[in-house]
Each structure stands twice: as C-alpha cells, then as structure tokens.
C-alpha cells in the first residue's frame, strides 16, 4: 500500500475517533448555555479534566498533522476526496456507538455532503 493511502487511513481514523470522543464527552458534559468569557474559561478548565474530550482533541491534532504530511506528498485534489469518506464512516459509527437515530434524511445528507466535498477539488 502506498504511503499516501496510509496517511488517508490515519486521517479518516483519527477524525472519526476525535469526533466520536468529543461528541460523547460533550453529551456527558451537558448543554453549554453561558458564553461569557469567564464562563468559557470555566468550561475549558472543566473540559481539561474530561478524558473523552482530551482524547478527542489529541486525535484531531494527529489528524491535522497527518493531513499536513499528506499535503506535502499529494495534491489537494487527492487529499480532499479521499478524506471525504469520513462523513459516511462517522455516520455509521455514530449510529452504532453513540446510538444516534439516523433516519433517511441524515443518510441522504451524509451522502450528498460527502459527494459535494469530493467534487470541490475538481
């Protein structure tokens, strides 16, 4: 398997892991309703102790640096369509792991957005 596809797999896996962990962590956290600077500082301090959000942010950072590395050896026209698969993979994982109700509108939305993102690089 070429190096490019290894990076694509790392990006898709880390994006999915990061989003799933952040979604779970924030659901556990409760709704954020106060957006004053002091309240946001308290929120950040609280999230710094939420292991799901910490894991999610680390996974997203790995995905970001893997994307930078992929872009150094591949064109954007390869990177964007290849990583747009994230939308479909994360929809499946959110249904199975996070037990979200994914009705036909959400499937349609995920397919259409993934297709749209893939077309952006042409």
């Amino acid at each position: 398997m070429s190096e490019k596809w290894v990076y694509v797999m790392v990006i898709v896996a880390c994006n999915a892991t990061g989003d799933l962990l952040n979604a779970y962590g924030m659901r556990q956290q409760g709704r954020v309703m106060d957006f004053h600077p002091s309240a946001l500082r308290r929120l950040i301090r609280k999230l710094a102790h939420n292991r799901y959000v910490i894991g999610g942010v680390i996974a997203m950072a790995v995905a970001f640096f893997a994307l930078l590395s992929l872009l150094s050896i591949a064109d954007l026209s390869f990177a964007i369509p290849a990583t747009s698969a994230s939308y479909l993979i994360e929809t499946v994982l959110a249904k199975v792991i996070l037990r979200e109700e994914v009705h036909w509108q959400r499937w349609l939305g995920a397919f259409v957005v993934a297709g749209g993102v893939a077309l952006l690089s042409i």
Partner: protein
Amino acid sequence: MNWYIRGLALAVVFFNVTGNYFLSVGMRSLGPMISAAPLDYIRAIFHPMVLLGIVLLIGWLISQLSLLSWADLTFVLPITALAYVIAAVLGALVLHEHVSAWRWTGVALIGIGVFVVSHTKARTAPVPNGDKQP
C-alpha cells in the same frame, strides 16, 4: 432548530472559514517550508496572520464542542460543512478566484445536504450519566 443551535452552527462556520483563511494567508506569506524542523513551525506560529488564524481556530474548537453539547454528531457534521460553501462563495466574490462548474456542483450538493439535515431533530441520542439537560 433552536437559537442556541443556529448561533453555534454559524459560529462554527465563521471561525472555521476565517481561521483557515488567515492561517493560509500567513503560511503563504512565509513561503514554502522545505524542512520539517520544529523551529520553523515555532517561527511560523508567531507570524501575526498565523497567530490570528490559530486564535480563530481555537474559537472554532470551542464552538464545535459547545454545538456537540446540544446536537448529534450526525447533525453537526453535515451542517458545519456549510463552511465549504461560504469559502467557495467568498473565494469567487471577494478574492475573484476561478471556481469550476464541478466545484459549484459540489457547493450545491453540500447546500442540499445542509438543508435536508437541518430539518431533522438535532438531538436523538441518549444522554449518558443521567440527564443534565435543562
């Protein structure tokens, strides 16, 4: 869709588009980075445009996490893809970039996806550790 969700979705899109724009302008003004030396990256971080981009992307992370406290991941992902649409429209109108017919088709598809998903219930998943939601 309630006003918190609308406002947070707009904040996510705004911080994403502006953060990536300033990051890209800053990195381009620094020229190509031919080495992977950590010092080059540290120097890049202190470029004013790159720094502004990073601050805006921290805003993106906080608004994205806040939106996830209100809505499902399968709701948030397609909705925030609106950032691609805004970036393409701004690129064409403000920066006078050439946007191909294929790209406009992609933008239209994302717009349809956002419209379809925005008409679904934002939160369907069970809340762990008891219900902290008001």
